[in-house]
C-alpha cells in the first residue's frame, strides 16, 4: 500500500523514476495471465523456502539438547542409550547441512514430522485443527465487515455527533486487546446474563463469543478505513455530478460511495488474516476451543518444535493464499486494475 506512490505518474505520463517498475501485486495483475501465475508461484515458493529456512535455523538457537527435549525436557531422567536412539531416529547426529536438506525435503513432500509432546504425526494433527480456526476466522471477517459497514454508513450520515461517536468507537474498538475483550464478553454474557456458554461448545452458541471477540477490534480498523474512504467518495466531484443528475442520498451511497469505500478495506485483507491468526491464538486458548492457535501456543509452551514449524508453514501458506485472494478481490472490485 505504501509503495503505491512510488509508481505514480508525472503529468507527462512518464514514471517518476527511470527505474523499472517492480512486479508488485497491483502492477503484475495488468500483465498476461501466465506471467502473473508464474511470478506468483515463484514468489510463493521463495517465501515458503525462506520461512522454512528461518525457522530451521532459529530452532538451532534453542539452548540445550534437542534429544532431551524430545524425551521430555531437561529435567527428565534419560539414559544415554535412549538419547542416542532418539538422535539416530530424528537424524540429529547428522551434520547440520544434511539435517537442513532433509528437513526441506520432508517439508516439500508435506511431511511435517512427529510431535515431540503428542507422539503423533504433525500433518494430520494440524489438518484436523485447521477447520475450526478457518471457520472462526472466516465468520469473524464477515461479522467485522458487517459491523464496519454499518458503523461507517451510520457515522457519515448522522451529522457531527454521530461522526465523533463513530470515530471514537472505532478507535477504542481497534485498541481492544483480544484477551481482555474476551474476558469482558464472558463476564457480561455468560456470568451476568447467562445467555452464552463461557467456553466454546460445539454448537453455534459456542461460536458467538469467540467470533465477536475477533470481529470487534477488526471492525474498528475496517470501520475507520471505510469511513475515511466513504467520506472522500461522498465529497468527490463524481458524487456531485450524480446528485446533479437527480440522484438521492441513498442512491449516491449505494451506487457510488460504498463501492469506493470497500476498496481500501479489501486491500487490508492480507493484514486482517494475520491479525485474525494472532487473535486466534488468544481466543482459542480463552474459550478452550480446539484449533491451530491453541495448538501453536501449547507447542511453544512445551517447546514442541515440529508442531511450531508445522503451524508456521501452514500460516505462511495461508498468508500467501490470502494475498492472492486479496489481489483477485481487488481485481474484481476495481475495474481500473483490469485495464491493459
Amino acid at each position, binding site marked *: 500500500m505504501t509503495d503505491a506512490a512510488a509508481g505514480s505518474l508525472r503529468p507527462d*505520463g512518464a514514471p517518476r523514476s527511470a527505474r523499472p517498475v517492480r512486479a508488485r501485486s497491483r502492477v503484475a495483475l495488468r500483465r498476461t495471465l501466465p506471467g502473473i501465475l508464474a511470478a506468483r508461484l515463484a514468489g510463493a515458493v521463495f517465501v515458503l523456502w525462506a520461512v522454512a529456512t528461518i525457522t530451521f535455523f532459529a530452532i538451532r538457537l534453542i539452548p540445550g539438547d534437542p534429544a532431551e527435549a524430545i524425551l521430555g525436557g531437561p529435567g527428565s531422567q534419560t539414559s544415554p542409550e535412549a538419547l542416542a536412539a532418539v538422535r539416530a531416529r530424528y537424524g540429529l547426529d547428522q551434520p547440520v547441512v544434511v539435517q537442513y536438506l532433509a528437513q526441506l525435503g520432508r517439508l516439500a513432500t508435506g511431511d511435517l514430522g512427529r510431535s515431540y509432546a503428542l507422539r503423533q504425526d504433525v500433518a494430520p494433527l494440524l489438518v484436523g485443527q485447521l477447520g475450526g480456526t478457518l471457520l472462526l476466522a472466516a465468520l469473524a471477517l464477515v461479522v467485522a465487515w458487517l459491523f464496519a459497514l454499518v458503523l461507517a454508513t451510520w457515522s457519515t450520515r448522522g451529522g457531527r455527533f454521530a461522526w465523533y461517536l463513530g470515530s471514537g468507537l472505532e478507535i477504542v474498538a481497534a485498541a481492544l486487546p483480544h484477551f481482555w475483550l474476551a474476558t469482558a464478553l464472558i463476564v457480561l454474557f455468560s456470568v451476568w446474563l447467562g445467555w452464552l456458554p463461557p467456553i466454546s461448545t460445539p454448537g453455534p452458541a459456542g461460536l458467538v463469543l469467540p467470533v465477536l471477540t475477533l470481529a470487534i477490534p477488526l471492525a474498528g480498523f475496517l470501520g475507520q478505513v471505510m469511513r475515511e474512504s466513504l467520506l472522500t467518495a461522498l465529497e468527490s466531484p*463524481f458524487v456531485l455530478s450524480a446528485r*446533479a443528475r437527480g440522484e438521492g442520498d441513498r442512491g449516491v451511497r449505494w451506487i457510488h460511495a460504498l463501492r469506493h469505500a470497500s476498496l481500501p478495506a479489501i486491500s487490508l485483507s492480507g493484514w486482517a488474516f494475520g491479525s485474525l491468526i494472532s487473535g486466534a491464538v488468544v481466543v482459542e486458548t480463552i474459550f478452550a476451543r480446539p484449533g491451530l492457535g491453541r495448538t501453536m501456543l501449547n507447542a511453544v509452551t512445551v517447546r514442541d518444535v515440529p508442531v511450531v514449524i508445522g503451524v508456521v508453514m501452514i500460516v505462511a501458506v495461508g498468508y500467501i493464499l490470502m494475498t492472492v485472494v486479496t489481489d483477485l478481490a481487488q481485481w474484481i472490485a476495481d475495474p481500473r486494475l483490469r485495464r491493459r
Partner: protein
Amino acid sequence: MSQGTGPAARRAAVTPPLVSLLRVRDLAVGFGAQPGTDPVVAGVSFDIAPGECLALVGESGSGKSVTARSLIGLAGNDAWLQATELEINGDDVLGLTDAQWRRRRGRDVGLVLQDALVSLDPLRPIGREIADSLRLHTTLDRAARRARVEEVLERVGLPDGRTRVRQRAGELSGGQRQRALIAAAIALDPPLLLIDEPTTALDVTVQAQILDLLESLKRHGTAILLISHDLAVVSRIADRIAVMSAGQIVEQGPAARLLASPRQEQTRRMIAAIPIDKPRGTRLASPGDRADAPAPAPAPGEVVLEASGLVKTFRRPDGSEQRAVDGVSFRLLRGTTLGLVGESGSGKTTTARLLLALSRPDAGEVRVLGRPFSAATERQRRRLRPELGAIYQDALSSFDPRLSVDAVLRDAVRGARHTARPGAAPGNAARDRARVLELLDQVSLPATLLSRRPLSLSGGQRQRVGIARALASEPQILVCDEPVSSLDVTVQAQVLDLLDELQRERGLSLLLISHDLGVIRHARDQVAVMLDGTIVETGDTEQVFGAPRHPYTQALLAAVPRLG
C-alpha cells in the same frame, strides 16, 4: 443531431430573448451559521434566455462556482441561500426541499463539472452514468434507455456507442471524457445547463472541439451558464458576459461590447492580462503602460544552453517502452528567450528534467555555457549549477515543507556564496540577510513574508519566492517549466512581466516551457513546437505564429481561443 419532437422544438416556438429561462435576482449565498451573514456571493442578478449563453467569468475564489451550484440546489449542506427571485423555466425554485430539487436536477437543470476524470465515477461504465437521469426521471425500460444513451453519445460526438457505454472514465482521453460528462448532463435534454470550467484541463485542440460542442447545444436551444476564469475561451461562445469579483458581479453586458469597451477596472485588467496577440515586450499587468518600450532585440550572442539529440525512454507499467523525448535538439542564445510549446504528453517536462540533469538522457547531450553538463558527474556539474536557475510549475512542492520563506532564501544565498567560492570566508549573517531582502525586493515581495511558510502564501507569491530563490546564485540561464499555468490570469500576467523585466535588466537567457500558446507568444525570440517527443517546428516567434509551416502548429494555432 436529434431535432423535431424534443423539448427544444417546443422551446424554439417561444419567442426567445425576452423570455428568460433562468431569472436570478439578488442572490446571496454563504456558509455561516446565520443566514445573511458573511455571504460568499451577494447581490447577484442575471437572466438567461433559451439558446443563450451567459458566461460568468472571474478568478478563483470569486464565487462563480458557488453561484452555479446554488442554481441546482447543491451549494452544500451547510450553505444558506437568499434571493428576491430565483426562477428556472418559469418555476420559483426558492426554498425547494431537497426532494423537490432532486426531481428537477438532471431534468430541468444539468450541471457539468470541470475535470471529467474525477467527475465521472471511475468504477462505473459511462453508459450507466449517462443513463442515470433516464433511470431516475423517466419510466423508460432498459432497452429504451440504452438506445437513448447511444443517441446522446452520438450527439456529443462519441460515435460507436455500443462499445463506448461499457468503457469507464479512465479508458477515455481527456476530450472524450468531457464529452461523456456533457452527455450525462444532457441525457434528458434539460433546458438549462450549468457548465463549470469545461475546458480547463484540456489541450487547446481538444478545448476547441468541446467549445464547438457547446455551441451546437446552444443552437439546439439550450440555455447555458458557462463558468470560466478564461475570457478568451468564453468569448468564443458567450452571448453575454458577467464578470465576478469577490462574490459580486462587477460588470455585465453583451460579449462584444464588454470585451471591446470594458467599463470596470477589474474587467480591463482581465482582458489586458490575456497574453495572446500582444506584441512582445508589452507589459500585461498594467495596460497602456508604454513606459518601458520593447527592449531592443539583443544581438545574437553565443549559445548558453544547448541540447543535442536528447532521447529519453520510459518503461510503462505494462512493460512496454515509451519514448518521452525522441531526438530533441535546440540552442538557447545569450539574452534571448526560447519558448518550448506542446500539449500534455509531448515530452516538455521530461525535456526540462533532462536539461536540469535531474534525469540522465539515454542518448544525446546537454551543454551549459559550452561545457558538458549532462555528461559530467554531479560533482563537476555543481560548479555549473549556479548558472542555471529553475522555476517550477508547482512552486509549493519545490520548497521543503518545514522551512520558512526566510530559511528557503537564506539557504539559497548561502549555497550560492559557497559554490561561487568554495571554502571562502565564513558566512556573514548580516550580509546574507541583506541579500535575502534584495532578492525579495527584486521579485516585489514585502519583507513581512519572510517568517511565513510557503504553504500559507498565495500561488503568485509562492512563484515569486521560487523566482527569488532561482536568482540567488545570479544565474545566466533560467529554465521555467510551466511557470504560470497554475495561476489566475492576472497573477499569471504579473509573473510573466516579472520574468520579462528580469531578463531585460540582467540579460538573462530564458527557456520558457508551456502548453499555453498565449504564454509562449509573449516569450520573444524563438519558439520550438513539440509533438510526441520531437520538435516539429522551430523558428522566430513572429514567423512561427504568423506563418506556421507544420500542420500540427497550424492546427494548434487555429484552436487557440481569441478575444472577439
